[in-house]
């Protein structure tokens, strides 16, 4: 049954572990990627290849911020990328995972 309300968590905390929502598919594109959530039927555009790299590595990095750093995001760019991740969290595209 399709929920119309995003199933994501409320606030994005970059010091927590995150992952792509299991119902989300990513399709790499030259501008970045398309992300589609099969549950909410929402489509998002990741507007840079770096953001795609961040999102793809979320599940294997200890925290959201680590995923940014690992993808080569410079310190002064961190706030921008964290805002982008917050937007994705808000629409349920990414979600918190339990720390491993």
């Amino acid at each position, binding site marked *: 049954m399709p*929920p119309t309300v995003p199933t994501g968590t409320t606030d994005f905390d970059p010091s927590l572990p995150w992952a792509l929502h299991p119902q989300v598919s990513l399709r790499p*594109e030259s*501008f970045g990627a*398309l992300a589609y959530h099969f549950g909410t039927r929402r489509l*998002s555009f990741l507007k840079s290849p770096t953001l795609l790299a961040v999102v793809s590595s979320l599940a294997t990095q200890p925290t959201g911020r680590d995923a940014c750093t690992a993808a080569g995001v410079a310190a002064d760019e961190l706030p*921008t990328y964290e805002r982008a991740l917050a937007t994705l969290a808000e629409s349920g595209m990414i979600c918190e995972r339990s720390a491993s």
Partner: protein
Amino acid sequence: MTLVAAERPTPLRLVDQFQLGLDAPICLTWELTYACNLACVHCLSSSGRRDPNELSTAECKRLIDEFERMQIFYVNIGGGEPTIRSDFWELVDYATAHHVGVKFSTNGSRITPEVAQRLASSDYVDVQISLDGATPEVNDAVRGAGSFDTAVRAMERMAAAGFVGFKLSVVITRQNVSQLDAFQALADRYRAQLRLTRLRPSGRGADVWDELHPTAEQQRTLYEWLLAHGEQVLTGDSFFHLAGYGESLPGLNLCGAGRVVCLVDPVGDVYACPFAIHDEFLAGNVRSPGGFDRVWKSSALFCDLRRPETGGACASCGSYDACRGGCMAAKFFTGLPLDGPDPECVLGHGEPRLAAVGDTIPPRPSPDHSRRPRGPAAPVAVALLPRRPNRAGDEHPLAAAGAAHHPH
């Protein structure tokens, strides 16, 4: 949809990137059959009778395999009335099992309580129920006697089964634009989401466009209503020509034909968009070597559509960046040049050009699977008659019985 920005912007704006095309469509319309139990006067695909050459179950499954390989997230299935196909549920199940989500359009005639229950339990299937009037009088004049009750009964069953957020899909016409709030109330009543799309002069819509398309004043009303309702109302990006009023509506605001969308018809022909079923916009067939993938990536037509546009006669207009010249299909089927204004240009640039078209006969939609002949029957008669005769003495097209179904 959501745009998630990040620092270093891509060299191109996203809209320009899309203009150049993607490796696979974002959204694909797939009409499964030309068969329909209704005969809507404005049917985009001139549906009615099944085509003997329609894709077989095995061919449909091969096509779904291709969609999966190309990572096409979901397909909008339409027709005709797609649920008429005896393998409809088999194909839906096959698609969802292969990670291709399905949103299908229906007139509701086959949504039994059992079907509604089945749909409600699926995560990967969405449903659009077509209704073109918030009252039986307005709806049935276009979609046929009894079709309002059929659609409402289907919505009742969906709601009773607990399917939240299915779509109530409405083509905006001169006759129903005053019912926007009533449509919203209907959607709310059944916990559905309202989806409004633009009437195109495509398919049988070419015969009734003059009588059905909204007036300039109504377009303004619609624009303001859409702005006020924001992302709560879906539009399939179909009203981007209204951006010429000033503010962009939610969505991509560009013509995605052959760039980010396309249509696969029941016999496997691939057209640039669901509103352009005509040889002029035919890119190839999925049965040809290389299949759909090759048609999408390398057909001459699609490569041509992906070239940067100059704007033609619209280039000097200050609103060109907002409306991008409007809808290709609307221009084509009203006889206007593709590089000029939309017939419903909100700045009024379309009207003098439409007047200049005069009695010249615009291209006829092709193919036609209507169950009974429409308009001037024989090609010879077409050539002799002005396309839009004064219909005072004719049977009014809205009096015609029946309705069909719009896929998008």
